[in-house]
């Protein structure tokens, strides 16, 4: 499903945070938003996920976000927020089952189909051995996979990932991103993510969007966005950009 964002403006507690953002993610595409801390990346994702009031338009497969009922929206768009809440004492299986909420009647209980969907996701993410473990007993990498599993259980074709790898070591970062990429290819998911590691961002995304001070400063293929000039301007950092196998390698250097 194509995500189309035009003229998006968001104000938080009266402070304007996004000043008219335009953005398109084609169906099946992976777009990653980069930008310095406080640029508005999380705010952008929350608006696209329908979690914030905004002006401008966001359409999912042609339907305006505001026209979708909450449950209908949750079946199309799944969000993994920057630091998901870990409910104390909850088992992994129950947590992933929360992803089926948009399919379960408000006061009803899950059907056999919901359980099948959950077990299917657990199996594909190699989480079956953890099904009855309490979420807070998992390591960071395992937890991140469980967060992803809940989002996948929503059966949505648009996946919003806010810094899915920030809490992980490079091995687990790669593991999670490869997993997302595999799921994207297998299920035709549309992915809109945010990320801090610029090299990694460029390696996995089809296109990058550089957000600075609530505006799109640059957008396009990684090689067009990850340039020494653009990064110097918006991150106030000196970097060397080296061509790599899967996109530019961004290396910070001392001035």
């Amino acid at each position, binding site marked *: 499903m194509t995500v189309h964002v035009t003229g998006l403006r968001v104000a938080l507690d009266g402070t304007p945070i996004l000043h008219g953002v335009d953005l398109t993610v084609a169906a099946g595409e992976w777009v990653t938003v980069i930008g310095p801390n406080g640029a508005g990346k999380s705010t952008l994702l*929350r608006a696209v*996920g*329908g*979690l914030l009031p905004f002006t401008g338009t966001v359409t999912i497969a042609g339907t305006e976000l505001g026209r979708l009922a*909450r*449950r*209908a*929206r*949750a*079946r199309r*768009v*799944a*969000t993994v*927020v920057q630091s*998901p*809440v870990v*409910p*104390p*004492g*909850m*088992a992994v*299986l*129950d947590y992933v*089952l*929360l*992803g089926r*909420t*948009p399919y*379960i009647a*408000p*006061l*009803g*209980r*899950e059907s056999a189909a919901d*359980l099948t969907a959950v*077990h299917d996701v657990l199996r594909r993410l190699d989480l*079956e*051995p953890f*099904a*009855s*473990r309490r979420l807070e007993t998992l390591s960071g990498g395992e937890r991140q996979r469980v967060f992803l599993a809940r989002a996948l259980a*929503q059966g949505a074709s648009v996946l919003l990932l806010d810094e899915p790898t920030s809490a992980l070591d490079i091995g687990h970062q790669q593991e999670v991103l490869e997993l997302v990429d595999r799921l994207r290819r297998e299920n035709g998911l549309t992915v809109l993510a945010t990320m801090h590691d610029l090299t990694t961002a460029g390696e996995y995304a089809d296109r990058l969007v550089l957000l600075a001070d609530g505006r799109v400063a640059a957008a396009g293929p990684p090689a067009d966005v990850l340039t020494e000039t653009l990064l110097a301007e918006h991150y106030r950092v000196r970097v060397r950009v080296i061509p790599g196998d899967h996109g530019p390698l961004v290396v910070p250097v001392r001035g």
Partner: protein
Amino acid sequence: MTLGPAARPARLRPLWLVAGAVAVVAAALAGLAFGPVTLPPGSVAAELLNLLPGVRIDSGLTEREVAIITELRLPRVVLGLIVGGMLALAGTAYQGVFRNPLADPHLLGVASGAGLGVTAVIAGRVAAGDATTNLPVGVPVAAFVGAVGAVGLTYLLGVAGGRGRSPATLILAGVAVSAFLDAAQTYLMQRHVDSLREVYSWLLGRLATAGWHDVRMVLPYAVVTAAVVLAHRRVLDVLGVGDAEATALGLHPQRARLVLLAAASLGTAAAVSVSGLIGFVGIIVPHTLRMLAGASHRVLLPLSVLFGGAFLTLTDLVARTVATPAEIPIGVVTAFLGAPFFVLVLRSMGGRTT
């Protein structure tokens, strides 16, 4: 540990349900058998069965002893089951809604609000010269208005006010609201000295004078509360991930919270209006269950009703037998047990400050 495909979602296992039912029956039998006159539990059980239509068992009890069971002790036991069940259920619901293991009808100020409502009605009635011993039917309504007002105030002070708050912030707000409402209640009592005796006897726990009238008055509210809260057991689990994520999952967190707060406050108000102020049941029972049976509300809520009822009935038994011939107020017993428990919960939360 590796349960793999056999792993099942949290559900109320039959064994737990049976345990809860056994606890209720055992507590009820104990409550009916013991007192100034001790009756054999077997005979008590036989008389209970005799209450069913078409059953006729010879229990060997005299007519007077049967009357002690059905007229004196049974309404008190039934009321204890209902009130205990309501307080524990409301506690579990508040804890889920606020994502705060310390939330309790008492500590949130809800009970004080309900108490103020009841006091206002009693004072008004005594002033009007009405001298019947039964509580007026308007009492639960007044208690509900007071309860909802109190939880709204606590919520505004503790949740909406400021960032960087900890679970204790909400409870501090509840303490402040309680203090204010208690002061308002004392003021009201001073203005209506003629109602003091009646208010006090209610405050210290009305279970002692419980009759079928009280059961009939509180039952409809208890049924509505239990139905609404239990219907939301899965929703409470969804609320556990916080408002933003619950919204992303398609839920209306504010709407669900409002319904649950209203229902829990109704249950608290009904309980308070017939039983006076009994604290800590809403912490002791849910917390113990959470440790033993798991954190899912699908398990916790129904078990809270059963074990809350059993717990309060047994507590009432202790309150009326431990210092015979005198009775100590039941709220005193629950506070003796509950205060150390509160410390336990506080410690188990560790450094968590979300």
